[in-house]
């Protein structure tokens, strides 16, 4: 494939693109090219990576403007989409504050997760303290549990990327996380109230950008977000359901039917 030119973002928010060239051989992925440039001509080029096999979700960046895992993006495919004579561009995820070069500050995501009510299992099924579950029930949530927390979905969500609603909306990753908990065969916690209010599920207008970029091919919008929206609607906008629940609630002192 020969020598390939790259435009790589250097510096913080006030940085700029710098040009590098490196030799690309068969089978190389974008992360290999970055490592090669790092070793050859830019020792201090900052990027995150770990497993190099699409399992840890560390090396998220924007390759030619597309949010991708650098370790799973092959150079031959990138070159096919790069117009002749143009350099391959690499920049950090844009929905987050840049740290340096290809590294973005994703710490917000870790804070968001803490705000979601944790797993709470039902009483064990067997005398020895264990549970019984059907494989089919397990399968239903496995899709969500495949998430590698690369935050590419957060990066493309316009609510976060363009409207910067980081304080009001938890983003697709954490809606998937909430869905995994809500649909967990053992979980008995109820998160619908928070989903509607603090987690801002209403902000999602199902444009499915998140689903398109998911490297684990999780059907984020259809399988996680929409069912959660339905759950919220059932709970909060169905007056008969609300009344029924209120009459059967053991804890009526805490207030009337939720609206």
């Amino acid at each position, binding site marked *: 494939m020969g020598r390939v030119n790259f435009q790589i973002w250097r510096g913080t928010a006030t940085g700029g693109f710098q040009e590098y060239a490196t030799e690309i051989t068969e*089978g190389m992925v974008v992360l290999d090219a970055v490592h090669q440039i790092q070793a050859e001509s830019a020792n201090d080029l900052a990027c995150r990576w770990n497993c*190099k096999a699409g*399992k840890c979700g560390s090396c998220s960046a924007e390759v030619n403007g597309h949010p991708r895992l650098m370790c799973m993006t092959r150079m031959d495919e990138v070159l096919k989409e790069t117009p002749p004579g143009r350099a391959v561009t690499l920049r950090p995820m844009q929905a987050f504050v840049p740290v*340096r070069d290809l590294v973005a500050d994703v710490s917000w995501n870790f804070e968001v997760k803490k705000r979601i009510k944790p797993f709470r299992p039902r009483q064990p099924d067997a005398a020895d303290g264990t549970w019984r579950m059907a494989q089919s029930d397990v399968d239903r949530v496995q899709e969500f549990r*495949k998430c590698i927390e690369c935050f590419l979905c957060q990066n493309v969500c316009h609510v976060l990327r363009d409207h910067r609603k980081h304080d009001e909306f938890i983003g697709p990753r954490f809606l998937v996380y909430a869905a995994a908990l809500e649909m967990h065969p053992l979980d008995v916690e109820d998160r619908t109230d928070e989903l509607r209010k603090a987690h801002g599920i209403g902000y999602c207008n199902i444009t499915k950008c998140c689903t398109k970029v998911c490297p684990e091919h999780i059907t984020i919008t259809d399988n996680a977000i929409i069912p959660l929206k339905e759950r919220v609607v059932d709970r909060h906008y169905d007056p008969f359901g609300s009344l029924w629940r209120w009459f059967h609630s053991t804890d009526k002192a805490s207030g009337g039917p939720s609206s």
Partner: protein
Amino acid sequence: MAEFQTHEHDVLVIGAGGAGLRAAIEAAAGGVSVGLVCKSLLGKAHTVMAEGGLAAALANVDERDSWKVHFADTMRGGQYLNNPRMAELHAQEAPGCVHELESWGALFDRTRDGRILQRNFGGHAYPRLAHVGDRTGLEMIRTLQDHGIHQGIDVHMECTVVELLKDGSRVVGALAYDRERGRFRIFRAKAIVLATGGIGRAFKITSNSWEYTGDGQSLAYHAGADLMDMEFIQFHPTGMVWPPSVRGILVTEGVRGEGGVLKNSLGERFMFNDIPEPYRKSTSDTPEEGWRYVTGDKNARRPPELLTRDHVARCIRREVREGRGSPHGGVYLDIAWIKERIANAPDHIRKKLPSMYHQFMQLANIDITAEPMEVGPTTHYTMGGVRVNGDTQMSTVPGLFAAGEVAAGLHGANRLGGNSLSDLLVFGKRAGAHAAQYAKAHGSGAIDIHAVDTAAQKALAPLDRTGGESPYQIQQDLQEMMQAKVGIVRQESELQEALVELDKLKARAAKASAPGNREYNPGWHTALDLTCLLTVSEISARAALERKESRGAHTRDDFPDKVAEWGKFNLVFRRGTDGGMVVERTPLVPLRDELKQVIEEHK
């Protein structure tokens, strides 16, 4: 101390993979304040890469299984150099740890009656590995992470420890820098748990990420702790070999557990040609019987592909060296063939091995449901490490604990697949509990500010130097040298050469320079990692030179046989009073009579 930000915790855990997270959770449950530092973001540690499963004698699939069989399997796999107390505790406590993980939300694949499903793996007599397809490690680390963040643990992400701080003989803290800004931080702690993983980055072909530079082993050694069994490095038999940029990436043993077979370029299942004596009785003679075994026939014996990793790796190396390898220097691993035996085989493979399917499709253009993979050995795991007390996981330095891959003892000369994830849980939990106890029983020590200053100055040196060599080049040369001379098969002359080379590399590393400033500068980080890599590489090379026999993962061309006398010792390294390396042959931890009997019963 003005220029150093200081954090104070009762227990400091270094490393946030499975062992570190489990230790932190347990320490917090013990009612002490806990800090957790990790070099990457939370949840990205190498545990995430574990594919096959987590070994625990739940006996859900085969009721003949029990902790005793698991114990005997672990000891046999480790060629009896294991710390038997650790192997015993591990086998007994692993099932409880799996259930505990389930109670925190982990979702394992199920049996028909709704219990946790278990799969076959090399060296395990019965199906024993609880698993989730081929992404068990992700399930485990995410469960621990998601549970851990609600336990009041202070997490310091992207933070690297460069030195342990001592007050007299005990550890009382650590000096670290945050990667983002490059600022130094002092962590004061009454007890410290090392959970930093292995040393795989010392080798060129490795399944390990940049993080596995032997930090914990090196920190412990320089703090005066004993390191043990450092000659035993596991080369996993099946890593990817093509294309070159993915060389070394792991191909799970689960492929063979699901019926995958190894073939050479002649199409021969060469594993049938060399079955070691201790395993002859339990290994099948025919492909037919092997297939019956992987499909659950309890009367069948396991196929030779599921022999221990050290042996399979050596057989693959032999095939390649004798000219029967695949085009890119590996052998063939074929799971696609099962279509001859079962209907809808491609769907079955994609369901059982989804990430393997994905990995080969995306990185190598290979559809594993239709064609064989090319695989070869890759550096995978460090059996050796910090010598610890089997019950408490405390090292020979008071207040310093170690758990998981960084600790030695459980696996002896060779680790069985699946015993790592259970190791992380069982001994992470123990280390956390005992560190908390230690912290409660001891006050804070004094931090020696001169030691802090010296360590900080040393750490800054690569940034201050100009015109020196690139740390990347030195790391690369080290990896190539270790691969060539301290690799899968060793011999005296090459090991001697390795020691000479290591001296030269040390001299080069001392003059390396890292351009740029302190903020998120991977060149500087690489320069600092070299200190650890060089320390552990030297100890491994010296240990390999010292052990004049072949046993488990340690194979000597010049001493090809196992020697009974060597079966009585572990090799222990520590820093001498003059700063030089002291090596000692330490008698094995004695095997109690009742455990001896367990081993005999399950021979």
